[in-house]
């Protein structure tokens, strides 16, 4: 199976049983992507495949052959500075334990790109697939909104 992960070519011998999540964490040591429920409920494992957010725990790794996978390790800017949404999470105290955070940020980046950030209600609806046990939701919505507004204003 060949694909790219964060822009790098990857070629692996895969058992078709293996999830994309396990491939990233166990084979590529990219442990930023978290395993919460492993059943599609929590969003902690969110990554992008060809630019769209998906759950890596419910994606058989063989399915992403030829596609571009992006994980939290791949979102930083060219100078390895933080992605604006990462900075916004810090600004708005949008995390406590941090376990859900990589998934929140991957989901948030996609939510902004999709244009589903028209109002706080729309952000809540389109971020509802990412559960936060610490209930940092107020900060998460604020961070996504700030970043979405900045994008809209051409920053």
């Amino acid at each position: 199976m060949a694909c790219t992960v964060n822009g790098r070519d990857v070629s692996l011998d895969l058992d078709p049983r293996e999830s994309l999540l396990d491939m990233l964490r166990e084979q590529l040591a990219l442990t930023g992507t978290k395993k919460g429920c492993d059943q599609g409920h929590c969003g902690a494992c969110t990554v992008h495949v060809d630019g769209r957010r998906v759950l890596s725990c419910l994606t058989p790794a063989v399915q992403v052959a030829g596609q571009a996978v992006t994980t939290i390790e791949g979102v930083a800017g060219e100078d390895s500075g933080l992605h604006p949404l990462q900075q916004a999470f810090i600004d708005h105290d949008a995390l406590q334990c941090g376990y859900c955070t990589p998934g929140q940020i991957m989901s948030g980046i996609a939510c902004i790109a999709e244009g589903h950030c028209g109002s706080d209600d729309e952000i809540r609806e389109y971020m509802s697939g990412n559960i936060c046990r610490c209930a940092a939701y107020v900060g998460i919505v604020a961070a996504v909104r700030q970043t979405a507004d900045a994008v809209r204003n051409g920053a």
Partner: protein
Amino acid sequence: MRAFSYVAPDTVDATVAALRTAPPGTRILAGGTTLYDLMKLEIETPPAVVDVHRIAELDTIDAGERELVFGAGARMADVADHPVIRTAYPGLAESLWQAASQQLRNMATVGGNLLQRTRCPYFRNGTEFPCNKRDPGSGCAAVGGHDRAHALLGGSDACIATYPGDFAVMLLAFDAVVDVTGPAGERTVPLAGLHVEPGDEPTREHVLAPDELIVRIRVPATPAGRGSTYLKIRDRESYAFALAAAAVGLTVDADGTVGDCRIGLGGVATRPWRATEAEQTLIGGPLTPQTARRAGEAAFAGARSGAENGFRIELGVRTVADALRIAGERATR
């Protein structure tokens, strides 16, 4: 998870060829959000899967004048965001964007969505519970057990598992059909005839053969599309299955008389449920809070509750009445 062999054909023809020679028990894999999940839980144990998720000719959306045509591989998120669907068929869009999460909707296909399996916790969570669907003849832990989310309509002594999907309920209300193909040829199955009630054979959930591929879903264009809503009531505001849901499509004449009326029920039955008697109570008369309430009561006249799910009958009645109000407003806008 059990080991399985994996093929990913590029075309529908190659898929049919692969299904023709596939071993018994082979399953079609699309987004995997039902199938791969249940394989991880070892509830599904296919020896082989045929992956259709990346077949381009299945990933199509065509909102035509005479009918809407969704390729079976179209993603839920893309159909939900389609501008024509959003404006001319708001109920269809709602039945999609209010289902699952955006990540799941990016993965899940509309074809796979129709055949998703029940969320009955006894079915999903393990062999210590009897379950006729998972282990035929073992009994049903939900009958007389924790049945809060189980079906009020269409159940049997053998199984009361709720059909959990939303989209199929709205499609049923719009008289949709599915075109299928397979080694035995092509045929068209109306949505009304796709799913079956459990009866004494709860392992059988629909009429398709294991080697039949859904190619597309077709919805006849209707003015009731504009006057439609999918109202979904949940334990939390978003990202949950329905406790009760109503799919309604209406046309209302200039004098306020209901012309066309379609009512589907979601989250309360063992299959997508059409409330035909409820529709009949409204056609040709006015839509008022009283007639809407009466239609809701007609829809649930045959409901049978168990230990913990009785509250969902009144909830369902009110959901139908409220959905009729919303659809009525849209139909007369």
